């Protein structure tokens, strides 16, 4: 059975499995869009440098057997600092409360499945905000996630709750039996004066192919504070399209760091919608690529209201036959006067088989703004190399030293210490093994 027929089959089964709700409506819309647009090809401007449709030459299936994953599987992949963290587990794209551990008080952190949230007091919130990202992400792959919203995650940090325990989300794909397609979906609210520190990471079990097509929507209200970390360090058989859509509807502060070390074909969409005056947002990214990895970071900062500030710094290293892509888009809408928006993308290319494609864009419709972007592609500094070699440091070690220093700019942006140290170790290991 081809993937498309399989999707159609599964979609119909899913729709028939329960009563019509707001979610089933959303799914129908999603599936219509998917049927219309299909999987994105390189002919679409937004997908010019990343071809995911070829990944679907293989057959993928949704794996429904969550039982196969045990707590012991999770132990192996825990992130540092988990003892204090709320650990939420997704298996094959579905949120599994039974495997998850919630350490914060229920008054501080509300965790439900999307279906549950749609029944209770939060139903209006869900109806209003679920699926907002499709205004910006109109392609078929995003619609495919929407077509299969099931056992999604709902998080709400109530007003005034400064959550001290971080939230870790582990995405586990079970590819021990078959090629697996996982489509996690989450909706997160950070209410007025609340604070959330969120980390996501991905693991594939087994050696078959896994494809994760994730959509995470975050709504940030007045005076809220959000830190978001995404760590991608999975096998070459693990490909991913991850869309993170952060909507700052009140004057708030958002800080994001995306670290991509290992993986197959990875596409990260990160949208920041600055929908209130005086919003502040920081975007950092690091991609250290080896082998045949392909990492594509797309960022969008849409300044809709005046006096917003945004700063982006993405740094990458492409070695072996890897490909690094960066596409950053800053839009300043006519009302967004006094916007300050900065963007910088720096790349080091280590091999003639590696490729860097970068496309920083500014689209500005207001006049009283300060916007700039810059990007560079280059090599390790010869003089710095010489300095180290002259002091008896072997070439490989010197290279690792310099690359570590290069990555440090982003590493320091990971604020929680345990997590930072954990990632520093991962980076060191990753750079040392050639």
């Amino acid at each position, binding site marked *: 059975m081809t993937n498309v027929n399989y999707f159609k089959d599964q979609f119909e089964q899913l729709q028939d499995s329960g009563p019509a709700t707001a979610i089933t409506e959303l799914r129908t819309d999603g599936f219509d869009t998917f049927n219309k647009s299909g999987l994105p090809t390189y002919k679409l401007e937004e997908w010019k440098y990343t071809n995911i449709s070829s990944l679907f030459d293989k057959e993928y299936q949704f794996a429904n057997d969550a039982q196969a994953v045990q707590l012991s599987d999770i132990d192996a992949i825990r992130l540092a600092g988990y003892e204090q963290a709320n650990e939420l587990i997704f298996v094959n794209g579905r949120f599994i409360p039974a495997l998850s551990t919630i350490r914060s008080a229920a008054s501080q952190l509300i965790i439900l499945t999307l279906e549950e949230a749609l029944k209770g007091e939060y139903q209006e919130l869900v109806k209003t905000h679920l699926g907002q990202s499709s205004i910006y992400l109109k392609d078929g792959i995003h619609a495919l996630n929407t077509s299969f919203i099931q056992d999604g995650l709902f998080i709400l940090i109530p007003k005034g709750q400064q959550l001290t325990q971080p939230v870790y989300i582990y995405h586990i794909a079970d590819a021990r039996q078959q090629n697996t397609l996982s489509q996690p979906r989450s909706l997160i609210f950070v209410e007025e004066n609340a604070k959330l520190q969120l980390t996501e990471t991905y693991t594939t079990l087994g050696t078959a192919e896994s494809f994760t097509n994730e959509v995470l929507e975050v709504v940030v209200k007045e005076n809220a504070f959000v830190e978001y970390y995404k760590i991608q360090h999975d096998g070459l058989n693990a490909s991913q399209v991850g869309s993170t859509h952060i909507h700052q509807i009140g004057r708030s502060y958002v800080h994001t760091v995306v670290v991509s070390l290992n993986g197959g074909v990875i596409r990260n969409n990160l949208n920041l919608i600055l929908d209130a005056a005086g919003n502040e947002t920081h975007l950092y990214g690091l991609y250290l690529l080896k082998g045949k990895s392909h990492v594509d970071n797309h960022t969008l900062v849409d300044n809709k209201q005046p006096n917003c500030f945004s700063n982006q710094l993405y740094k990458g290293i492409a070695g072996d036959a890897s490909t690094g892509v960066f596409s950053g888009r800053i839009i300043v809408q*006519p009302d967004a006067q006094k916007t300050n928006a900065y963007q910088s993308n720096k790349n080091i290319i280590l091999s003639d088989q590696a490729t860097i494609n970068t*496309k920083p864009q*500014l689209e500005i419709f207001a006049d009283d703004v300060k916007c700039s972007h*810059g990007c560079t592609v*280059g090599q390790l500094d010869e003089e710095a190399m010489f300095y180290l070699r002259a002091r008896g440091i072997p070439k490989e070690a010197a290279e690792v030293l310099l690359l570590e220093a290069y990555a440090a700019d982003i590493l320091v942006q990971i604020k929680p210490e345990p997590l930072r140290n954990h990632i520093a170790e991962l980076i060191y290991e990753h750079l040392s093994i050639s």
Partner: protein
Amino acid sequence: MNEDLNMLEQTALNDYKYGFVTDIDTDIIPKGLNEAVVELISKKKNEPEWMLNWRLKAYAHWLKLEEPKWPNVKYPPINYQDIIYYAAPKKKEQLNSLNEVDPELLRTFEKLGISLNEQKRLTGVAVDVVMDSVSIATSFKEQLSEIGVIFCSISEAIQKHPDLVKKHLGSVVPMTDNYFAALNSAVFTDGSFCYIPKGVRCPMELSTYFRINAENSGQFERTLIIAEEESYVSYLEGCTAPMRDENQLHAAVVELVAMKKAEIKYSTVQNWYPGDKDGNGGIYNFVTKRGMCQGEHSKISWTQVETGSAITWKYPSVILKGDHSIGEFYSVAFTNHHQQADTGTKMIHLGKNTRSRIVSKGISAGQSQNSYRGLVRASKGATNARNYSQCDSLLLGDKCGAHTFPYIEVKNKTAIVEHEATTSKIGEDQLFYCRQRGIDAETAVAMIVNGFAKEVMNQLPMEFAIEAQKLLAISMEGSVG
């Protein structure tokens, strides 16, 4: 500064200075495009068969293509059957000297400020004038031919130097390149041809002046410049069109070929009619310009000042094929009222040790949209390729837009590519500084804009630099305050 001041006063009405129609008998063919029209154009120009076949092939390919939709510009669909593809000022015989040129025509150029006689006598610039579609006369031809430089209209070159044309026409911009290049290849009516032989440094600036005169006519000119080994040429191109309510299409193709150690400097001052304040009329300037650095150590430099046209859509590019070759692109694009510009460059690094530099300055006023779109590509073989790009945008007014779309593709570990872009408005402090010293707001803005564009203006040959500066001031008029 005084001169600028006067000029601003003079043009206080903010009219398009070059908006007059010359009353000359024009030899035109009916509107529309089909194979017969292509054949007719070819026949009227008395072309050899290979040329006709080439055109027909291009036409056949054009039919298969779709008009591109990706640029950041908006315009109503163009009806390609509503355009006159050939409009030539009527003439009875081949002209041998300027004295034989229609006096009415000469007056047109006097109004434009490029009197042939004047230029010939005072500045020593050789001018090839293209009105509507046909080259009228070429001055200084004799002096040039003494040193072996061929500078003539492309139709003449097809007749007299078929081997050269055959070899190079379409070698840089193939007829299949894009929609408008294919259209141009099928119906181009005239343009300039320039050949600099080995080791010759062209002693004067070569110049072409384009002007669209006839109503409803499209201008499809084709320029081909070939610089043989160790030669040098500086080529200037200026464009104007009379005021009309309708939109006119201008789809030109320019090809440059630089051999070993040759250098071509190509400067454009584009001042096509931009439409009126409400965005009616104006020229659609959809141009394909590309240079090929064929030999080692060759250099191609594009300089452009774009103030006119309702829509400008062009990307003068350089293919850096020869080792150690250099590509440069300097651009000032000014848009006012409802003008739209989507312009930039492509630097394709193929050879070793190739270098390129891009400086683009965009200024938007009124309700205009101004985009920079550029590509820098360092391919696998482009060892030590080096690029530096800088795009700055200045916004005058709160209804205009400035956009930057740079593409950077690197496949070589020794390549170094840098890009930086900024967008801002004129600083309050800068304005305050000028106002405090008794300079009125408009002059102050003109000064600041001139300073902003200076880096590019400095690249223009003298005669053009002055004209370009005036044009900028005229275009800016009314956009302040």
